[in-house]
């Protein structure tokens, strides 16, 4: 045994054991990271960063309007857009199951079109609606236009989500309802749709996060000081004080909402996965 080991040893060059190799690899990765941090830190002008991005005096000027106006409006735009998107999305999903061909085609076309367009384009178009429908005004002024814009876009995404949810409800649920004498519509409303909505709560929460961020597009509708949402508020404050700190503050305020919501969506998803 010892003899053969002694003979073979010189044939193989002394190599690192797998564990040693792992250690070296990890060491290199840390090294690269530290080097990058040092380079960035050395290039950055720290005094200027503190002055321009982390300026507490400027940040204080955001209060209380950051919450009482900007965040409040952002929430209003998001929720109202979500409500419209939810309702229209559900109707579109049901239309896609219709036995009437044109309903299916219209719903399919709607989804393809509005998922394929940038949301910004919709917001640029909304102001021109009265040209197509003379005398028509979106009720609620900017709030109505924002809800319409966000609703029209999110409806396309939610329609697909609802469609998946409706398909995920077992066929036996509809059969049981029909066998009890429920008409098709009653069975949909009382039995199938409630279960479908339950299934799509996690993806809808993600949609809410996306909408919350997309509400920044409202600034293209031309808003007054009382109608501003977080992004425009930050930008306006930054211009006023010639200092970008308020934009950073707005960003942090977005994260205050989006990170917990995203976390909640993942929790709901995990819980649903476990119960199935």
């Amino acid at each position, binding site marked *: 045994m010892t003899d053969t080991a002694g003979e073979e040893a010189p044939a193989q060059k002394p190599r690192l054991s797998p564990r040693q190799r792992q250690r070296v690899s990890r060491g290199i990765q840390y090294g690269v990271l530290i080097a990058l941090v040092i380079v960035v830190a050395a290039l950055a002008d720290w005094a200027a960063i503190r002055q321009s991005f982390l300026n507490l005096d400027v940040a204080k000027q955001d209060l209380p309007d950051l919450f009482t106006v900007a965040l409040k409006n952002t929430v209003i735009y998001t929720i109202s857009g979500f409500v419209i998107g939810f309702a229209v999305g559900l109707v579109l999903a049901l239309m896609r199951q219709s036995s009437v061909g044109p309903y299916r085609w219209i719903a399919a076309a709607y989804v393809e079109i509005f998922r394929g367009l940038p949301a910004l384009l919709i917001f640029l178009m909304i102001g021109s609606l009265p040209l197509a429908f003379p005398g028509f005004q979106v009720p609620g002024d900017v709030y109505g236009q924002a809800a319409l814009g966000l609703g029209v876009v999110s409806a396309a995404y939610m329609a697909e989500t609802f469609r998946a949810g409706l398909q995920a409800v*077992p066929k036996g*649920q509809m059969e*049981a309802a029909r066998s*009890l*004498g429920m008409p098709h519509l*009653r069975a949909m409303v009382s039995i199938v749709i409630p279960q479908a909505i339950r299934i799509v709560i996690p993806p809808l929460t993600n949609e809410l996060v996306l909408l919350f961020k997309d509400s920044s597009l409202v600034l293209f509708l031309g808003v007054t000081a009382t109608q501003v949402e977080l992004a425009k508020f930050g930008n306006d404050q930054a211009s006023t004080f010639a200092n970008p700190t308020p934009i950073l503050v707005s960003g942090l305020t977005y994260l205050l909402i989006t990170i917990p919501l995203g976390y909640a969506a993942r929790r709901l998803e995990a819980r649903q996965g476990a119960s199935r």
Partner: protein
Amino acid sequence: MSTVEIRNLHKSFGKLEVLKGIDFSVESGQVVCVIGPSGSGKSTLLRCVNLLEQPTSGQVFVDGVELTHPDVDLDAARRRLGMVFQQFNLFAHLTVLRNVTIAQERVLKRPRAEAVRIARENLEKVGLSEKADSYPAQLSGGQQQRVAIARALAMNPSLMLFDEPTSALDPELVGDVLQVMRRLAEDGMTMLVVTHEMGFAREVADRVVFMDHGVIVEDGPPEQVIADPQHNRTREFLRRVLHPGV
């Protein structure tokens, strides 16, 4: 007048002809068990009785009303037909009590209090009154199936359809469900049961129908069809079911 009467019923799925001309009837108060190998068309036949499957041709009458007539109010007709499914199909988002009341309220327009009273009576009948506030997912398969029976009974059907009601159950849970069905039969309920439970068929059925390849091969009292089958196909099927592995 028969409770159910079926005349020359055909059903095809695409090119596959599943029912090839079925004639039979169920008299009021009778318990009829339909047996046969899988793929023989027995479940399809049952689903054609309440038109969950649209027959390709032929007629289905329930209490003298032709369900296959284009002008018939199917929803109204289905109220008289209770159905119990292999997979229970309880409404997963509703409590046991709500499962039993919802169709009473929405379809029969019974007031809430009356619907609840009738629901509790029927849950009592299947031995599950204490589960009224549970959700289906919290019950065993056997309990879910008994709730499904109570749900159907609450509509006061003149006929109960059972589609392999014990096939999805663990063996030790089959007995409770069969017990409920046996009691129902004793109470005089008209029942059409697709089943593999030969013991139940022999003991409870007034008539046993053997189906194979989309036709009724044999139809008679259990002591004849099960104990003394006249046809080779019936004998072959029963040999395999009663003495598996022999």
